[in-house]
């Protein structure tokens, strides 16, 4: 069986043989994995898929396997969030997106590795060890949805779900040479994803091609009353897949090509812009002066929200628990031993930013800067249909290279986190290579204008071959 298949090819294989054979073949590939992409491989996948073969299923994904980031709840499978503190926890309910996938007939292969509680850009802070980049096993796959991106790049799953708080779908998509979409805030229900920073995050799909991203969005997007920020946009995603960018106006925000950008990344992105021009689109430079403050604003908001969200992990109802002479001691010890260092740093900084005397200086200030960043997007996108920039300023770095200095690692989110502050949709598609490492092109659009974002991504894909390249080390 071919190792890298599109969803359409998977469905053909199921027709030719059986859903069980297809899932068994993916489980075999996972069994020989060199990348540590999965935290849990589902022991029920074969049982689930046999049921689909024997009883039949008329859903759009009948028998099609998928990998799920391990911060999205699947009833009956551990949901570790890459943390020791959720040791032994089995969620008694499934996320909205999982309910939708199961109703469509999808088979959950397993849960993929991530930075602990999705806090990172390298998948190195997981309690279960780092995931390797399939293109170079000594390098990080990006993060925090590094497991999801890496297993898709390595052919261990046809597609996957991740979550994106400040770039956590797009960064690993860029580093692993796959496609990843951060939908408009509110497009996909967050019910059942373990919250890190609610006002910023969205669940998003990762796949080997733009079509499969649209296939997944048609299933997971839509209104869910259990997420009060959920909005029914009634978008038909697969209908956006049109190979035509004639008369499309592209904005190139110069602030996304800042100091420290790798020259090959800059060249690959400009080559892509000229490719669009040759296909009938026009481009102009635009300025977004407040983008330079987005990273600080993003981290203050994310850490503040995290310090509140992660207060629930106290050892009383589930997961890892230490003992102590009273409640405060028990909770303080449980959290000290259950959380990793990066999570603790973010909780401490978030607590500080919200504490008496510092709230206005940090948290309120960051929220005001967020307004300015959002206005920058609105102004730029009033003039043009899309914004195009590098997803990541540099290719994947070495495992261990940045882990000791948190600030250096934070700076790698410089081009992805502004999008989450503004809540706009953004996709990363493969657009080149440097020394054998993939480069990602970031295409950003107006809120709920995924159709234009997907159309541009699809057109690029139809007219280039970067998305057909496979990592030799795992072939």
């Amino acid at each position: 069986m071919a190792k890298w298949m599109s969803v359409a090819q998977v469905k053909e294989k199921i027709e030719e043989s059986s859903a069980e054979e297809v899932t068994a073949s993916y489980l075999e590939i996972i069994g020989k994995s060199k990348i540590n992409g999965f935290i849990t491989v589902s022991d029920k996948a074969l049982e689930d898929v046999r049921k689909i073969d024997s009883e039949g299923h008329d859903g759009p994904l009948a028998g099609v396997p998928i990998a799920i980031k391990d911060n999205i709840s699947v009833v009956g499978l551990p949901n570790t969030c890459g943390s020791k503190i959720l040791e032994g926890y089995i969620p008694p309910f499934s996320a909205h997106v999982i309910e939708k996938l199961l109703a469509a007939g999808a088979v959950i292969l397993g849960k993929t590795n991530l930075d602990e509680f999705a806090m990172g850009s390298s998948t190195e802070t997981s309690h279960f060890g780092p995931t390797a980049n399939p293109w170079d096993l000594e390098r990080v796959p990006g993060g925090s949805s590094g497991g999801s991106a890496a297993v898709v790049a390595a052919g261990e799953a046809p597609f996957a779900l991740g979550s994106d708080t400040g770039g956590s779908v797009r960064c690993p998509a860029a580093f692993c040479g796959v496609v990843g979409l951060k939908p408009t805030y509110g497009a996909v229900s967050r019910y059942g994803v373990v919250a890190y920073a609610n006002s910023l995050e969205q669940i998003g799909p990762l796949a080997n091609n733009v079509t499969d991203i649209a296939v997944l969005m048609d299933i997971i997007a839509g209104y869910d009353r259990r997420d009060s920020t959920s909005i029914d946009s009634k978008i038909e995603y697969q209908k956006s897949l049109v190979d035509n960018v004639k008369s499309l106006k592209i904005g190139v925000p110069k602030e996304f090509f800042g100091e420290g950008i790798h020259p090959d990344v800059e060249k690959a992105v400009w080559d892509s812009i000229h490719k669009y021009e040759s296909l009938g689109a026009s481009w102009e430079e635009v300025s977004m002066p407040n983008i330079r403050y987005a990273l600080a604003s993003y981290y203050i908001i994310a850490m503040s929200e995290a310090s509140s969200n992660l207060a629930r992990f106290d050892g009383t109802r589930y997961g890892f628990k230490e003992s102590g002479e009273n409640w405060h001691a028990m909770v303080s010890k449980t959290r000290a031993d259950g959380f990793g260092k990066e999570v603790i740093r973010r909780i401490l900084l978030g607590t500080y930013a919200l504490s008496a005397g510092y709230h206005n200086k940090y948290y309120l200030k960051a929220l005001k800067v967020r307004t300015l960043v959002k206005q920058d997007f609105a102004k730029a996108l009033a003039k043009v249909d899309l914004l195009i920039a590098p997803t990541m300023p540099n290719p994947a770095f070495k495992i261990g290279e940045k882990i000791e200095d948190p600030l250096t690692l934070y700076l790698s989110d410089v081009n992805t986190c502004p999008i989450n502050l503004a809540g706009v949709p953004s996709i990363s598609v493969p657009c080149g290579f440097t020394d054998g490492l993939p480069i990602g092109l970031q295409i950003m659009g107006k809120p709920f204008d995924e159709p234009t974002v997907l159309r541009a991504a699809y057109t690029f894909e139809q007219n280039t071959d970067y998305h057909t390249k496979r990592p030799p080390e795992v072939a």
Partner: protein
Amino acid sequence: MITKEDVEHIGWLARIEVSEQETVEYMDKLNSVLEYFGQLDELPTEDVAPTYHVAEIFNVFREDVVEESLPQEVVLANTEHKQDGYFRVPKIG
């Protein structure tokens, strides 16, 4: 700049035990991040309203009706520390 005492205080607020040695380690790393955050001071924002979230929706209400919920034993299944249908925890102080 935050001090060792600040780290101890926020550790208490966040209910995370921080050892003597860790206090210094966290203080250094937290200060380097806070120094970076300080760049926001140069941007005037007196007349700017804060953005808490970007969804253009406000006051999401629903009818106050009882709906199906998870059974009690399912909710309690993830811990050994329970008694008479309740979670059991050490006394507060």
